[in-house]
């Protein structure tokens, strides 16, 4: 779990800026992607775009998508901070909400979050931990099959993911979405992209979001064609050789990753040791990236044809 408190401060992030109005730049960093055995730099904090129109979907073009079950697709990329020691593997899943049925799953044991990939049944085609959590309970709004489990929270960098009864998905930022017809919902933070734009607290230092902290990341986004994107990073180092070196991506870098994958709207989910993902390929084989920690809430996709609820 990325410590929730880091994020909680970020929720109310407001960039007042230093005296004199000078903007403080992001900490220097660069991102490169390995393409045909060559590292190619595609993002630099000094010239980080504030907006990601579809045309900037650099990473989506490099990705070699593999067929998943029920119209899903997934792939992996190798990322690197140019010139730095660390390496990050990026796993991306793409789902068409028209071809899958999305639902939330909860799990508690003795009152503590107990969901892990071990709970994912054979019918699921994609499963991922959802939202953020406090000790044992999910953070923010949780709507389970139309009934409110936990009340909502609204703040400038909070995003709400909703699934309606007919399967339409939305990511709404900084405000409560219209609940009409919504069957499943959860909230998370911070918002990474809002209609293609990177929120200002992620574009400079000192606006309430820790833009330097590196960690394993997990994010959820929706691209221009309405497809759902799930992106997870994994450490790609050599065992314990780098055990004192900061690894993983920063929040602004993850916003860039989502934008470069083609997402217009995106939000960070609980990463770190909570991040876990399962994808079933077209042959029915489940590919698992387990987490270390169990969580209370997960987003699970089933084939549309599956008749009964999980």
């Amino acid at each position, binding site marked *: *779990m*990325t*410590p*929730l*408190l880091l994020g909680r*401060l970020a929720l109310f992030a407001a960039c007042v800026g230093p005296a004199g109005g000078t903007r403080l730049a992001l900490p220097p960093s660069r991102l490169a992607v390995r393409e045909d055995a060559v590292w190619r730099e595609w993002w630099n904090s000094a010239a980080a775009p504030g907006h990601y129109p579809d045309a900037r979907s650099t990473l989506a073009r490099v990705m070699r998508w593999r067929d998943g079950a029920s119209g899903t697709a997934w792939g992996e990329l190798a990322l690197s901070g140019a010139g730095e020691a660390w390496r990050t593997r990026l*796993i991306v899943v793409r789902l068409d909400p028209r071809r899958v049925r999305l639902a939330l799953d*909860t*799990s*508690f*044991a003795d*009152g*503590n979050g107990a*969901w892990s990939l*071990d*709970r994912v*049944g*054979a019918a699921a085609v994609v499963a991922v931990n959802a939202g953020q959590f*406090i*000790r*044992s*309970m*999910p*953070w923010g709004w949780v709507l*389970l*099959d*139309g*009934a*409110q*489990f*936990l*009340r909502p929270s*609204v703040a400038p960098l909070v995003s709400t993911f909703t699934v309606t009864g007919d399967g339409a998905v939305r990511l709404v930022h900084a*405000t*409560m979405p*219209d609940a*009409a017809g*919504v*069957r499943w919902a959860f909230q998370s933070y911070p918002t990474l992209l809002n209609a293609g734009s990177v929120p200002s607290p992620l574009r400079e230092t000192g606006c309430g979001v820790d833009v330097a*902290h*590196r960690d394993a990341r997990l994010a959820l986004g929706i691209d221009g064609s309405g497809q759902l994107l799930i992106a997870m990073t*994994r*450490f790609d180092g050599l065992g*314990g050789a*780098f055990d*004192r*070196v900061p690894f*993983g991506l920063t929040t602004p870098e993850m916003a860039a990753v989502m934008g470069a994958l083609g997402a217009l709207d995106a939000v960070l989910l609980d990463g*770190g*040791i909570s*991040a876990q993902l399962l994808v079933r390929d077209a042959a*029915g*084989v*489940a*590919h*698992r990236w*387990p987490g*270390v*920690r169990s969580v209370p809430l997960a987003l699970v996709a089933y084939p549309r044809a599956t008749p009964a*609820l999980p």
Partner: protein
Amino acid sequence: MRLPIRITGMLFALIAIAAMPAQAQLGRFIKKATEKAVEKKVDEKVEDATPVAPMAGDPVTESTLDALLQGLSLELETSAKTKQLWTAIQAKAKDVTEAERAAGNEPDVWHKASSDVERCVSNSLDKSNKLHEQEMPQKMMALASSGNNSPMIAKLEAVSKRMRDAQAKNDTPAYMRAMTDYAKILGYDPAQDSVVAFGVCGKLPTKPASMVKLEQLQAEVGRLSDERRDLENETDARAAKAAGMPADKYALARERLWAWSDARRQKKAPRVLTKDEDALFTARASDIKRVERMLR
């Protein structure tokens, strides 16, 4: 200045159709969380069995551990209440499940009947909105060309501000009141559109008693769950304070100790920590044991 009449209409539709069609499955889902059996894995490939990356945060030192243990001791104080709340949530979720069973298909029948009315009302409001939109250019022209329109514009600006303020506060009733006033200034009455629509389509069916009971129980599960979450939240903050650490540093240190504890429970090496930390935690195992249950 553009009147968001379409939104106004939709808002009034929402007022009228106050209860959204909940699927009444909360009890089942929470209950399932504790009872669902793990399905047998048939064919799978673990791509990345254990993330071996170093954990986020600074390695825990002797002094950090002392502070952390103080915080965890404070957390112990609320553990009984947290557990009690969980027991209450489970019991209430069971009541919800029973209420769902008792309600049978009554909720489905009610949802079907109410959605028929909703659809009819929505169509009626759409027609009203289209009419208003057609009339709008003329109304705005008349306003612009009238001799002294300053008071009217001032009124519209004041109501617009109320709408913005209500939106910022996420105060839906206040927002809708402002919307109504805005429309009325321009000669419309969205509430009247709603009255007309329901006059044509009929009233929403009354909810059966079984549904009312079900929704009350669901709300109770939500209230208890919120209470438990609030307690955890508050305990977090107090524990960090007791430890004398910034909240984020406390959370990171706590997570590192959790990783050690979890690895020990599973008889695995805590590969995400440093060797020094592992040695420190092992040396202080008896101190940690006193508060270890807070880490689960």
